[in-house]
């Protein structure tokens, strides 16, 4: 049985406690499958794939004990390109499928690859339920704010007014912020990163793998065909410094040229706001703490950047320990089997029996 005490500062990858370790070391290329990658040239998915292939060796577990499960969408082709076990399932259902696998197989590292449509539109319910249960899954949500595979309809993360094939007069649906939604559902780990920043992406994967329970990693991903440049504000050298808030545990949330911008807590309302020119000793300056038990702070963070992306936190918003569904299910079974292992004959006989003599 895995030791279930969580320690946020633990260096080990707690999500793979109990998964057989590899002998020697694997390389990124060991995780390349023999399948030709079939995304559009220039798609952000390539960078994510490379980052994941680059990170997996670090996990230190056997390749055959890693499973990627996906739904349907461009992003959901992900498992085909990884030389691990994988399932490209049906639209929206990957978290449910992964729950069954993770629950019965503590010796596997189970990952979900999904898109904004897959995870938040048709699959929204499975996502929030896996988050509240805290199943030991690492969920990579490729958010390109569009339905790529079906050729460009607006998605539940598309901005209001977006003109697409299915919203020729502009979308009137308020989008979800996936991290707010996850926190509302009781998520224990939520993080955000960007396809183009391989180093940051890798660091977030590392943190997710260190988390035992459901880790939701939102990855802003460019769809250069149907929603090109959606995240340019957070990527272009000229502007990104003024818009990206990098979250680092224990560090004050100061960013922008010369640290000109800070995140302040409105002491009267609790709201977090970005303000300019605040002295370092202002007690309202927010110091990042991803380990707070109460999710209100993380929720406040998740509201920054909503709408126009202008000030967008990236990094780990929240990482706390809570009992893990699959561990608990197995613990009940372990107790029951240890207490008195089932005997089929006894079960079938039951209590009220009688005998018809020969």
């Amino acid at each position: 049985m895995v030791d279930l005490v969580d320690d946020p500062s633990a260096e080990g990858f707690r999500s793979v406690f109990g998964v057989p370790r590899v002998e020697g070391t694997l390389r990124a290329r060991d995780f390349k499958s023999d399948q030709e990658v079939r995304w559009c040239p220039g798609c952000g998915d390539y960078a994510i794939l490379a980052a994941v292939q680059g990170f997996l060796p670090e996990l230190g577990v056997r390749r055959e004990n890693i499973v990627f499960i996906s739904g349907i969408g461009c992003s959901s082709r992900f498992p085909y390109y990884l030389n691990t076990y994988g399932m490209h399932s049906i639209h929206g259902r990957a978290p449910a499928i992964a729950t069954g696998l993770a629950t019965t197989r503590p010796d596997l590292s189970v990952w979900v690859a999904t898109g904004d449509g897959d995870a938040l539109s048709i699959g929204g319910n499975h996502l929030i339920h896996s988050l509240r249960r805290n199943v030991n899954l690492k969920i990579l949500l490729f958010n390109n704010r569009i339905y790529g595979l079906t050729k460009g309809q607006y998605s539940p993360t598309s901005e209001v007014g977006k003109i697409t094939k299915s919203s020729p007069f502009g979308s009137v649906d308020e989008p979800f912020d996936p991290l707010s939604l996850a926190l509302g559902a009781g998520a224990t780990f939520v993080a955000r990163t960007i396809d183009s920043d391989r180093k940051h992406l890798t660091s977030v994967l590392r943190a997710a793998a260190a988390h035992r329970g459901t880790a939701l990693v939102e990855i802003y991903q460019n769809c250069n065909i149907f929603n090109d440049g959606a995240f340019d504000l957070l990527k272009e050298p000229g502007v990104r410094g003024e818009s990206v808030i990098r979250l680092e545990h224990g560090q004050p949330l100061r960013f922008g040229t010369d640290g000109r911008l800070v995140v302040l807590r409105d002491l009267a309302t609790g709201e977090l706001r970005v303000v300019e020119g605040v002295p370092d000793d202002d007690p309202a300056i927010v110091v990042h703490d991803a380990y707070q038990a109460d999710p209100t702070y993380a929720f406040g963070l998740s509201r920054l950047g909503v709408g126009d992306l202008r000030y967008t936190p990236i990094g780990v918003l929240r990482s706390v320990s809570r009992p893990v569904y699959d561990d608990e299910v197995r613990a009940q079974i372990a107790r029951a089997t240890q207490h008195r292992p089932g005997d089929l004959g006894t079960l079938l006989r039951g209590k009220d029996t009688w005998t018809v003599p020969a």
Partner: protein
Amino acid sequence: MTKEVMQLDRVVIRFAGDSGDGMQLTGDRFTAETAVFGNDVSTLPNFPAEIRAPAGTLPGVSSFQVHFANYDILTSGDRPDVLVAMNPAALKANLADLRPGTTIIVDTHDFSPRNLQRAEYTSNPLEDDSLQSYHVHPVDLTQLTVDAVRQAAEGPDSAGEVGRKDAARAKNMFALGLVSWLFHRPTESTLEYLTAKFGDRPALLAANLAAFKAGWNYGETTEDFAVRYEVKPAALRPGAYRNISGNLALAYGLIAAGERSGLPLFLGSYPITPASDVLHELARQKAFNVYTVQAEDEIAGIGAALGAAFGGALAVTTTSGPGLALKSETIGLGVALELPLLVCDVQRGGPSTGLPTKTEQADLLQAMFGRNGEAPVPVVAPRSPADCFDTALEAARIALTYRTPVILLSDGALANGSEPWRIPDVESLPDLRPEFATGPNGDDGGFLPYLRDPETLARPWAVPGTPGLEHRIGGIEKADRTGEVSYDPDNHDRMVRLRQAKVDGIAGSLSPVEVDDPSGQARVLVLGWGSTYGPIGAACRRVRGEGLDIAQAHLRHLNPFPPGLGEVLHHYDRVVVPEMNLGQLALLLRARFLVDVYGYHKVRGMPFQAEELADLLKGVITGG
């Protein structure tokens, strides 16, 4: 006073009362006594969809019918010989089912004008002439129970005060005691049951025991009951028996399949009437390495099961019709992935929400065809409550051998009905251990996840954790052998046919259809599936009892059909197919064998009556 004792071959008793009156419990206990006594027994609970409809109303009536006999019986009985009615509504709701001469024991306590009105009586049936043709025993069961409980409270064994309400609540035990006396039932099991149930509430225990005994003594002492009845034990096959309901037998069959396959049993399910009890039972049996995930919905339930199947578990999902509809898409994925998966549908009245607590057989075509594309799935159906056990094992055998989803169609009547079950010897159960892929199977040392076993056409089951067999599967069409994504037209045609051939090929593992044609002279065959086995069989007995010839066959395998079915159908002049739907098996038989079967359909949410089927068959045989 010694009472006259009359010997009977068989008796049908129906306990009926308000939803809150504990009729299901009363019926269960009477069944247990009867089973232990050695009669053959068959039961049918019937209750409203509301948790507790307004007291005293017709929609609130709940009933439980027990049929027992000194020979092996097949149904829970068409019409009761004895009706126990705990209130006016229970009397009114059941009267239409009674033949003249039926014994009615009725609790007179609630026949006040207000309660009569609730039951939509305009005059008191105990006082007008409307019950003249029955043997009515009016007894103030409630008052007698209250008195008995009070007396007990004053006696030496009293364990404390019981309020009048709780006392009155024990009236079902009074009724049980009385009826147990009337039919010479052994009472030990009930006394033990009550002791176990109320062990930690001594006052309630005392009350219930007092009520039960008072009921027995009431029969013994009052003059109202001049005759007692005896139904001798049935000469069943030797062995150890217990009584079992279909849902319990299904749960046990699944556990047995887990044990015999050596795999963890995984259930992903969402509660739904009348299937929930299977989830409840499996949730209790964790000591058998049973995982139960109560999912957020039916789709997640089957999704989790499919994930567990990928991981090498014996994966199951349980549901009823509306849930099966929701699972359609994922069953299709299971067909494409070719992973073992049991889908148990405990059918209920439809369409839509329909009649959730009633029975029906109208999901057969949904099971066959309710998926996009050509997505063949084997379908099996149990014929009786105890047969749910064997059918679960058979479904598991097919799923594990052929790597395919299998749909098992039970129904509400089987699920809640019960019968004696000859407890099988564990060692005699089939060996279901599957072979997992452990190494490469390709000529070049690679792994081909869609290379098929030449005999079964099953693909390898290579579970994560197996080194060297890393592979990816999915719902997009796959290339033959390699399993890679393929849009090639010819490959698609080939794969569609291979999947069909695999399912068709299961027939090769089945024994030919068995026909019961004792005289060998029958020109009419009656063919059924599922829970109609009982009434059809009982009808055949009646028909034969009248000297007519009838052949009977009953299908466990609906897809594929067992070998020889076509020949059998063509052998008879007339094939009658009674179904609790509008002719779903009939449609499949007609399409496959071009036989002009005669479908007989009732969609009343209730099992067929042996009598009506016997009349039907006689009519067909005699050309009437």
